[in-house]
Structure formats: C-alpha cells, structure tokens
C-alpha cells in the first residue's frame, strides 16, 4: 500500500532498497582485490588527464625497477593500443583495453583483461586508466592504491576543479617537473590546492625525463608493496583460481 504520499492506493508499493547504484561493479572490484591481495600483487590504479604523463611515469618506473621487480600493466584508452605498445617496448608486459567510447575502466573490464597478462607472476600491476579527471574516480577496480598523475602544465587549480578524483588519491604525482623553470606554476600552490580536497595529502613531484623524484615514487610504491606482502604472510595462504 502506498505510504509515501498518503494516498493509500493498495496497488502502489514503496520498496526500501538503500543499495549502491554501482553494487555490481563493487562486487567485481572486491573479487579482483581479493585475487591481487592473495597473490601478493600490488595493483595500482593510475589516473589523470590525457597527456598528464601516465605512460611516461610507468616507463620511468620500469627503468628504475628493471631486474628488481616484475611489472605488468593494463592500459585503457578509447582507441588504439599505443600505450600498451609503449609499455611493452619499456619491458613491461601490457594488455590494452580499448573502451570505444567509455570514459573509464570498470572492474569487469579489468577482470577480463587479466586473462591477457600473467598477473600472478607480478610484483606490481599498473592499471593505466583512461585519460580523464572525472569518470575513472567513480569506479572501483579492485586496486590497492589510487595514484593520480597531475602535470605541472595543467595548472595549480585542477585539484579544486576536480575534487572527486583527488579526494580518492593515495598519492598525487606532480609530473613534468623539468618544465618548472618555463612555467608560472608554483609547486607550493599545487600543494595548497590539494590540501583542500585530499585529507591525507601526499604529493611527489617527478620528472620522467630527468628522473627527478622517481626514487621517492619508487620508495612509496615499495613501502605499499611491503605492507601488502606482510598481509599475505599473515593470511598464510594463496587461493587457487583459474585465471591467467
């Protein structure tokens, strides 16, 4: 019986649901997360604008960790597998997800792409999201950490304009640091803007070109990975499951 407007119509029912609209994606993300954690793979959701330097950061990461850690990647783009090609050229096994018109990756897409990367063998799985400062932040992929690449050239006000993504970031990489002498942007102004949208502010300026800051970024990653590996050791076992 209708009790919402008080009309008492016996053919109207009001059903209380109180469920996340993205609950199906959340479930898929949880599934991914359990697998990554059990296998001791640190999954990194790397987000940022088109051209922020996400792929360049991963190339620099691969150069630094070559021979020490096993990296893999899933790269999302509307069209082409160019990013995946660049990553493979940098020695990182990479699968491309071509979304067509979708502006973000979701947990199902990532799960499907896992068949194309030997992810169980990895220390790090980087999911390079579609270049976009809005939509990717809405979809949980099952990552352990969210990293946002923000390039100096985008200007210091971007965190204030796109608070949703920066709120969810565990770390913001301020990329293209080598361009600092040519720009009017101040790193401290970026930090101040971030502090107003990201409660536990973490900002690392980097330059993929000069290598500045890359060691700090790697140290941050390694600390996260150490935490994950300790968690796996405490859990005591790894689940078998028929993925790649």
């Amino acid at each position: 019986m209708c009790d919402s407007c008080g009309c008492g119509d016996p053919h109207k029912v009001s059903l209380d649901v109180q469920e996340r609209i993205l609950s199906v994606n959340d479930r898929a993300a949880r599934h991914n997360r359990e697998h990554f954690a059990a296998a001791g793979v640190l999954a990194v959701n790397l987000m940022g604008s088109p051209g922020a330097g996400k792929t360049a950061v991963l190339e620099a990461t691969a150069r630094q960790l070559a021979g020490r850690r096993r990296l893999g990647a899933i790269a999302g783009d509307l069209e082409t597998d160019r990013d995946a090609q660049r990553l493979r050229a940098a020695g990182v096994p990479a699968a491309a997800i071509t979304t067509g018109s979708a502006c973000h990756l979701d947990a199902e897409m990532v799960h499907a792409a896992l068949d194309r990367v030997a992810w169980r063998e990895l220390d790090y799985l980087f999911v390079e999201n579609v270049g976009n400062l809005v939509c990717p932040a809405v979809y949980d992929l099952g990552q352990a950490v969210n990293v946002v690449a923000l390039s100096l050239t985008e200007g210091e006000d971007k965190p204030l304009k796109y608070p949703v993504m920066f709120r969810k970031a565990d770390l913001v990489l301020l990329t293209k640091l080598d361009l600092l002498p040519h720009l009017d942007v101040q790193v401290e102004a970026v930090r101040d803007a971030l502090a107003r949208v990201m409660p536990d502010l973490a900002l690392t300026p980097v330059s993929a070109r000069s290598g500045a800051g890359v060691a700090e970024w790697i140290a941050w990653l390694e600390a996260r990975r150490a935490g994950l590996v300790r968690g796996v050791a405490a859990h005591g076992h790894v689940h078998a499951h028929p993925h790649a």
Partner: protein
Amino acid sequence: MHEYSLVAALTRKAEEEARAHHATAVTCLRVKLGALAGVEPELLASAFTLCREGLLAGAALEIRNVAAAWACPRCEAAFPTGAVLRCAACGLPARLVSGDELLLEQIEMEVP
C-alpha cells in the same frame, strides 16, 4: 560522461526488483547523490529520461542531493567549505561524514 553507464546499472537494479515483486510498472526511483560522488545530477536525470524503458518507461527519477561534510575524526570539529582538510588542533586528516553517496534508496511501483 559516465552517467549513461550509471543509468544502465540503476535501471537494471530497479527492473530486477520490480520483476521480483511482480510489479506492472515502476513509477518512481529515489536516488541519493553526494556532492563528491562524481555524478552530475542534471546529466543523470537527462540520461535517465533518454534510457528508461519497459517497466520503467513512465518512471520518474527523484534525486536527493547531499552536500559534502568533513569532520575531524578525533574532536569532530566540522570543516568549512574550501578549508585545508587537516584539523589544526589535532593534526589529523579530516574524515568525510557525508557527500560520497550514490544510492538507490527507494523504488515506487504498481502491483496488481
């Protein structure tokens, strides 16, 4: 423009519930939307109007907007809009109290 994929998730969920309850039509969906959910209410509404069909063809979408609210996890002091999100007194990062909701709250339907 992820609002279309959100509407697809929303209508699928509502349709499942409607079918489970043998509804003949869904008249209204009530959605709670936080300011930091990353969704534009107007875009969600227009995507819904374009995509509703079947049991939901005549359904209305009511969106309840929720403002972002931050508080210190220790002293519970609230943060004014635009403030640095770290408590000056306690030194702790602010906790989001509300504003990231993306919820289907209620479905209103007609049953035989």
